[in-house]
């Protein structure tokens, strides 16, 4: 059933309809019937169904959603559901589309999830810049309250659930789940040491489930079609469809929904439209800026599922595919990313704070034509020292691109050092405007 020439519009089936955004239009196209169905099921049945479906978190780490829900304590202690709509991973723009085109899809998925985990309160933490998403969600939440899908005794089931939005204020690190919890508590968005995991101790020290926008929306469809039908999409271990945000140098960038296991080659050349005349593929970052980069040759062999990309030493991450053509300088690309990680490190852990600073500085000195040959080794050494030593994964996320860029495109780095200018662009760059 694998189609490779077009999208598989499962979650996005009705996204072309402007009316799908409002409650009426949403209901006309299958909206809220699965909430009704779910409320007649036992919560444990829903958790089991989600577990069986094989659904894995769409926010980056790809952890089994059903298993995560299973970590909640088995008691009546109040618990929270927190939707991660921070979408800060460079290259990712799918959650914004989902919130703006189909806010009720997320809300319905969240109410069902809330019921499954026995949570009476949920928050959607939206990055502060997403003004339109926030306004669209706010309107939709109001509509849902009015229609009795939120509030007390939802559809006569006896289940109560309240939902609210929390607006972030500009910090990538608040996308990390414990950083998000700190931020929601009105603090600096600094991550906390795990364990305890949020499912045991999260928001206000209460058990909290943090899931990505796309993950929570999928829950509705697992209930609608059942786990067995859901699993027909995708591969054995990477089930379902996934929204990929395709950007960079392709001629048709955008969000594309395909079954997991879809060939990366078709994503770039068929859906993405390939390149401008005279240009060709040089590199692909397959899962957001934190995922190790692939060469063109590797990319042509890859399929978009958790296993294949992990086997190839990279990851599916958030599903953000950044395509780089042969007109681009890899030193400049890496410098761009290192500026990002340096800027976004929250500064709690020394290896991350100092390491991102060093990486940013070293790669920019190469970019300015002032690098030394030993700086290339130094980049690798600094990056190696940042791995696996910190409170959260940002430090690793900064180190991995360095190691992959420098190893796979070493010749471009050496050329820059030797000649004092970019092999591709023929120039060096003055120091960037620092923050």
């Amino acid at each position, binding site marked *: 059933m694998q189609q490779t020439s077009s999208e598989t519009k499962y979650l996005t089936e009705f996204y072309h309809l402007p009316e799908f955004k409002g409650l009426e239009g949403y209901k006309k196209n299958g909206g809220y019937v699965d909430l009704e169905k779910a409320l007649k099921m036992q919560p444990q049945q829903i958790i089991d169904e989600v577990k069986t479906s094989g659904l894995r978190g769409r926010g980056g780490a790809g952890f089994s959603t059903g298993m995560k829900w299973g970590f909640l304590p088995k008691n009546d202690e109040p618990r929270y559901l927190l939707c991660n709509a921070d*979408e*800060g*991973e*460079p*290259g*990712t*723009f799918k*959650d*914004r589309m989902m919130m703006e085109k189909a806010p009720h899809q997320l809300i319905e998925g969240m109410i069902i999830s809330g019921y499954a985990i026995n949570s009476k*309160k949920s928050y959607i933490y939206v*990055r*502060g*810049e*997403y*003004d*339109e998403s926030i306004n669209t969600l706010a309107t939709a939440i109001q509509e849902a309250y009015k229609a009795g899908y939120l509030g007390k005794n939802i559809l006569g089931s006896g289940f109560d659930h309240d939902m*609210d939005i*929390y*607006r*972030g*204020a*500009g*910090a*990538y690190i608040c996308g990390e789940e414990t950083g998000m919890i700190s*931020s*929601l*508590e*009105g*603090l*600096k*968005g600094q991550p906390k040491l795990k364990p305890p995991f949020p499912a045991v101790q999260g*928001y*206000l020290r209460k058990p909290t489930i943090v899931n990505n926008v796309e993950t929570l929306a999928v829950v509705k469809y697992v209930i609608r079609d059942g786990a067995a039908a859901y699993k027909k999409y995708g591969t054995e271990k990477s089930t379902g469809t996934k929204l990929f*945000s*395709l*950007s*960079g*140098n392709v001629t048709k*960038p*955008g*969000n594309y929904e395909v079954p997991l296991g879809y060939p990366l080659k078709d994503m770039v050349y068929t859906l993405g439209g390939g390149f401008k005349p005279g240009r060709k593929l040089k590199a692909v*970052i397959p899962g957001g*800026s934190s995922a190790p980069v692939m060469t063109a040759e590797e990319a042509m062999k890859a399929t978009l599922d958790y296993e294949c990309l992990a086997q190839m030493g990279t990851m599916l991450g958030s599903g*953000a595919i*950044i395509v*780089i053509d042969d007109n*681009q300088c890899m030193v*400049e*690309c890496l410098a*761009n*990313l290192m*500026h*990002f990680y340096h*800027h*976004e490190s*929250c500064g709690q852990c020394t290896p991350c704070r100092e390491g991102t600073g060093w990486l940013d500085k070293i790669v920019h000195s190469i970019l300015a034509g002032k690098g030394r040959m030993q700086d290339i080794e130094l980049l690798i050494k600094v990056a190696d020292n940042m791995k696996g030593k910190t409170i959260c994964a940002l430090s690793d996320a900064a180190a991995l691109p360095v190691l992959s860029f420098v190893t796979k495109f070493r010749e471009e780095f050496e050329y820059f050092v030797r000649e004092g200018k970019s092999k591709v662009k023929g120039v060096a760059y003055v120091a960037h*405007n620092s*923050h």
Partner: protein
Amino acid sequence: MFELSSEGKQQVLNELKRYEAKESAVLPALYIGQRENKGFINAEVIRALSNVMGIPESHINEVFTFYSMYNKTPIGKYHVQVCRTLSCMLNGAKELTHHLCKELNVKLGDVSSDGRFTVTEAECLGSCGTAPMMQINDKYYENLTPESAMNLLRGMK
């Protein structure tokens, strides 16, 4: 001396009741303070918020400095934030920023002499499929060229 308007004060009080924890109101309150102080936050805004909220200035200040959407210095009427991150860079963000600064005759972060514009760089704004892009105040402008962006700015009075 900065004071919150009565409407702003009421909004802050509402935020204090909105969440399970009182401190959760700090982020929304900072937005309210920023809006009422011509787009940026200083010690006076923090003091006013602290008085209304009963939360120490030191705490509010700590939160304020952590997040990039709270402006630390005065800002033009239009805050032009050009995304600088990879997908935008691959599509000409550097040239875009350079062009805007040159045409408006400003350095990054400065207010233009007529008070209308401040150009800054932002990290990935989640609009990479329509790169390069910028945010002006609350709104996104996508698929830009240096010329089309400058034309947009010329229309903003």
